[in-house]
């Protein structure tokens, strides 16, 4: 039995594919084949000017209506529509290393799979894809381009990423903003822990520069309900801080605070007019792809 769309977008299934190119192709093609056609709009060409007909020119560009009216031969000159830049901004801090018992992969791996699918989809639609990955320092930068092998370069860069260090969102997004030259779709992928004060403001800046911005928050299910049994000495992956706690006794408080945090984060992004997409590492990648296409629609 061939795999269903759901299977193709299931992270448990995709995580088994070591190759990001194969992974993205499988997911995106499967995803698109399952969508209603109206959701997908192709790109046309834009009329620029008339030009006198010269023998040898392609007759298909001849303006027959003008010939009928004026009895003169003109050919239409079109200009190809300028493609969008899709900038994938990826947080690779140490907190993305976590993988809970219910997750198919680490948060970083899930983030990379999401980025790979988006990159493939964008390339397939003729957009220029770029990558900007950082943790405590800059990890990978691939400017958007349309050269051959661009997608391959992005996917290779994703393969090289390792979770490390504490995320320096402010400085890194500042750096990213400095090299942003034209209108783009900025897809920011991170777990956004402890970033509720910085990230909405930073991403809002891109929005003000007419960039359509999508924030994707990747969380492990364990971070939502803290199902840890017994006493554990929790070691913060980024700060190194340690807390010894019996999860059974602190779970309710934790879930409450976490919920507050997520709510405030969503509210902050709303204020910043930045779409926030929250994904769990056990969820289908379809949400990410659908939300991306929705943003593309918003551009037209």
């Amino acid at each position: 039995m061939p795999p269903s769309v759901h299977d193709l977008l299931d992270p448990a299934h995709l995580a088994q594919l070591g190759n990001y190119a194969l992974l993205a192709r499988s997911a995106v093609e499967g995803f698109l084949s399952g969508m209603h056609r109206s959701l997908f709009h192709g790109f046309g060409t834009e009329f620029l000017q008339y030009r006198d007909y010269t023998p040898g020119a392609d007759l298909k560009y001849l303006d027959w209506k003008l010939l009928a009216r004026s009895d003169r031969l003109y050919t239409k000159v079109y200009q190809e529509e300028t493609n969008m830049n899709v900038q994938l901004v990826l947080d690779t801090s140490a907190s993305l290393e976590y993988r809970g018992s219910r997750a198919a992969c680490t948060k970083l791996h899930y983030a990379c799979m999401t980025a790979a699918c988006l990159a493939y989809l964008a390339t397939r639609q003729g957009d220029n894809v770029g990558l900007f990955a950082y943790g405590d320092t800059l990890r990978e930068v691939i400017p958007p381009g349309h050269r051959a092998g661009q997608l391959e370069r992005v996917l290779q860069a994703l393969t090289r990423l390792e979770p490390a260090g504490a995320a320096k969102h402010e400085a890194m997004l500042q750096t990213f903003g400095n090299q942003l030259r034209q209108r783009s779709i900025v897809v920011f992928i991170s777990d956004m822990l402890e970033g509720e004060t910085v990230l909405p403001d930073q991403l809002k800046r891109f929005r003000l520069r007419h960039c359509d911005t999508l924030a994707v928050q990747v969380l492990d299910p364990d971070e939502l309900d803290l199902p840890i049994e017994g006493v554990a000495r929790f070691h913060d992956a980024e700060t190194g801080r340690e807390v010894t706690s019996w999860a059974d006794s602190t779970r309710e408080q934790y879930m409450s605070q976490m919920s507050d945090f997520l709510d405030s984060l969503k509210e902050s992004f709303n204020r910043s007019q930045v779409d926030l997409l929250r994904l769990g590492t056990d969820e289908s990648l379809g949400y990410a792809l659908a939300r991306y296409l929705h943003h593309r629609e918003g551009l037209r």
Partner: protein
Amino acid sequence: MLSFAQPLILAALAGLALPLLAHLVNRARARPLRFPSVRFIGPSQLPRDKRRSLRDLLLLLLRLLFIALAVLALARPAWTPADGSAPAAAGQTRTLIVLDASASMSGWGAWEEAQEAVKAAAESGNPTGLILFDTEILATVPVGSPARTLEQITADIEPGQRTGDPSPAIAAALHEVGPDGPRKLILISDFQQSTWQSPSWPKLGEGVEIEAVQVGDFARPNAAILDARAYAAPEGRLRVLARVRNDATTTRKVTIELHHDGDTETQTLSFAPGQTQTVAFLIDKPEDSEGEVVLAEEDAYAGDNAFAVWLGTPAPAQVVALLPTMQEQDKLQEVAFVQKALTAAGENMPQDFVLSGAAPDFDFGAVADAIDVLYLPGTTAYLDEVQLEMLRDFVENGGVALITPGQAASRQFRLLREGGLTNTAFVGVPGRNREQREPFRIATLEPGSPLAEVFTGESARDLALAEIYQYVKLQPDAKASVLLATEDGDPLLLRETLGRGELLISALSLDTQWSDLPLRNAFLPVLREVLSQAVKADDTVIRLAVDEPLPADFPLPPGATTPRVSAEPGVIELGPYMIQTNLARSESLNQAALVSDIRAQLSGETAPESPDAAGSAATGPTTAIALWPWLAAGALACLLAELLLAAPARRASSRKAAHA
């Protein structure tokens, strides 16, 4: 009483400390967990779960029990039920020392070691008794006698001059230690092969432990006089021949003396290790018929350093040949060869035979008592029924008949069969023409066959080179033993027993027409050895070991009891007979039996392959109850309970590991 087969394994009980330590160390401790962010996780107190503590304690108990039971099971414990008898109740073993006092124990330092061994056993604290034996039981000291009594007896008594037989002593010992409780036999002996080769020893019952203490050192150098005999020499003199063996592992010079009539003749010879030599003394005919051959030097065993010898002249064996007719020149030639061979005498070879001829119709029945060997060179064919009857009577009464084939070989063997003398049948003549075929050869003698000891080295080669041109093919009687055979396996010389006498049947005429054997050096020893083995020793002298009774067929007046004449070595005269008594030479054997074999035979088992196995087979009562199966089952039950009880905890632990 609880005992352990592997007590050293009990040291593994120290392993009980491991789960205890693990229990103490492995309390509910926080496990480290790397988490994305701890900003919303508050610190909390460690839980105090009483139910879990109880489970942990139960687990600890089960683990401790498992280790203890497993270790105890591996130590192979056995429970010996308490016995009702007094010595067992007191934890003592009824012990009986079986002490060998045969003649050999006086040599090789054995008796001194045996006295020490008795002393050590008597002072072991167990109630101990003693049985002293040689051919029979010499003394019995009951179990529980004071140790001093045992030591005093072994100090007072010395090994005698008799051979040893441990069977009656062991049977008496088993009776003495009783049927119940812990019992032990301590065998103290040199375990000389000749003493300890009985096939019918009493078997030890269950619960009887046996300990073998070997004393004496057979490696000590010793020389032995094996035999001495006197023969008539020319000019009325006497030749005394003594066979002496050197049991040392080195070459040594041995001085041999012959004492007779107050005089001493001395000879010194050099002996290689293990060599046996015949020493000859030529003396004038002595007045006293008793002499003694003595070794001058002391050695490990004094019992074989002297040999009493009768200085008389045994009569040579009388051989009567029933001569063929003058027409049978070949057979006459054979008689001449046989006469030369039998009557020859040399420096070291006394004249053993006197051959006289008689006509075939000679009434040998009338003088049968005076004839030792009746020689029939092809003349069996001439015997009538009466003579055949006489011949059978002669052989059945101890005579020897030497039969060779003549021209009428077929008739000869038919008459012998019809006369009830033999079932050996004439089959044919394989070869007659000496010019046209390869001669037949005598096959190599089988090791252990009667002639193999005589024909070794060059002499065997000479025998093998003998060329046989013609012989009669015989189908031997089932009871016949083949002394010589051809390479094809056809018998050449047969010996058959009939009554008390023997038939020597040759398939070969002993003349030069049938073979060249009569011309060879091997002919004389073949003939003399075969006849010597068949002819009974001269009946003038009777040779006995010390304390050996007279032969059953010794002629005594009607109603007289057999006198014991052999209490001491020496020569005595009993009517027309001379009785020569010496210590049994079997006591000179310097080889010990395998103690493990003796133990196994006494225990009623087959001989163990290794000394260790022999030791374990011989020790330990078998009434103990093995406890290890119960302990092993207990350990298994504990293990299963532990697995069941710990399963939830293990599942939780694996989940935690997955989280980490």
